[in-house]
């Protein structure tokens, strides 16, 4: 399988107590389990990212459960409010139990 690439866009610095937007994008084919192989006529087994978790300094901020209706190369944006500077960590887990991680540091003033 091609190497999965995760991209996270979040501000480098934020004001204390102010919500800022985090944009995430990860490369994944998100095989729905509905598609059929044109040569064999067999259904291609489902293989999607089913769980996304975002933590800030180890505390869970936001998470999402995904179903096959999420598009390939899933994009998602959400908001985070931080009280102190720290590390924002994103983790995507797929049907095969593989977890991909990406983190970014944020300075809060």
């Amino acid at each position, binding site marked *: 399988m091609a190497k999965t690439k995760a991209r996270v866009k979040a501000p480098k610095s934020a004001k204390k107590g*102010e*919500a*800022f937007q985090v944009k995430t994008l990860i490369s994944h084919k998100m095989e*729905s389990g*509905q*598609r*059929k192989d044109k040569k064999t006529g067999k259904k291609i087994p489902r293989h999607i990212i089913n769980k996304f978790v975002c933590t*800030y300094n180890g*505390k*869970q*901020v*936001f*998470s*999402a*459960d*995904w*179903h*096959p*209706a*999420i*598009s*390939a190369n*899933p*994009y*998602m*944006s*959400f*908001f*985070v*409010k*931080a009280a102190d500077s720290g590390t924002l960590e994103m983790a995507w887990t797929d049907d095969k139990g593989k977890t991909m991680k990406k983190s970014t540091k944020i300075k809060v003033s």
Partner: protein
Amino acid sequence: MIRKTLEARQVNRRELLALFGAGTVAAMGISLAGPALADAKSTAAAIAKVTGGKSAAAGKITLDTPQIAENGSTVPISVSVDSPMTDADHVKKVHVWAEGNPNPDVASFHFTTMSGKAKVSTRIRLAKTQNIISVAEMSDGSFVMAKSEIKVTIGGCGG
């Protein structure tokens, strides 16, 4: 005498044809409306499972979708709930369903008070023109709901 029976037969044949015609149309109608109804029902069941039978009123929730999606394989949607996101009053979860998909579940988003703002955007797959429903679960145990129709030109579930 013979002629009369012939005429009678002809009428009968015509009537029969007309009957068959009507029958086929009716059958087609059923086959067209059937799956959509079943999906709306299974969506309603999925919603009831989340809300525990409580009614979800329209209100502080906004479901932002395009009116027409040319490509059903990536349709941008955005859900926001008007909430101060404090310990006393915040949004716990937001669920999204698509009535006309093979599986109505789309996603569930879990918020915390650290989210600051209950807004989430993503891209989804839609098999055909259908209703999108989102329900938000608030910290006080109440539910709010929003519904939006998206017209899909090309379905996004693959063949």
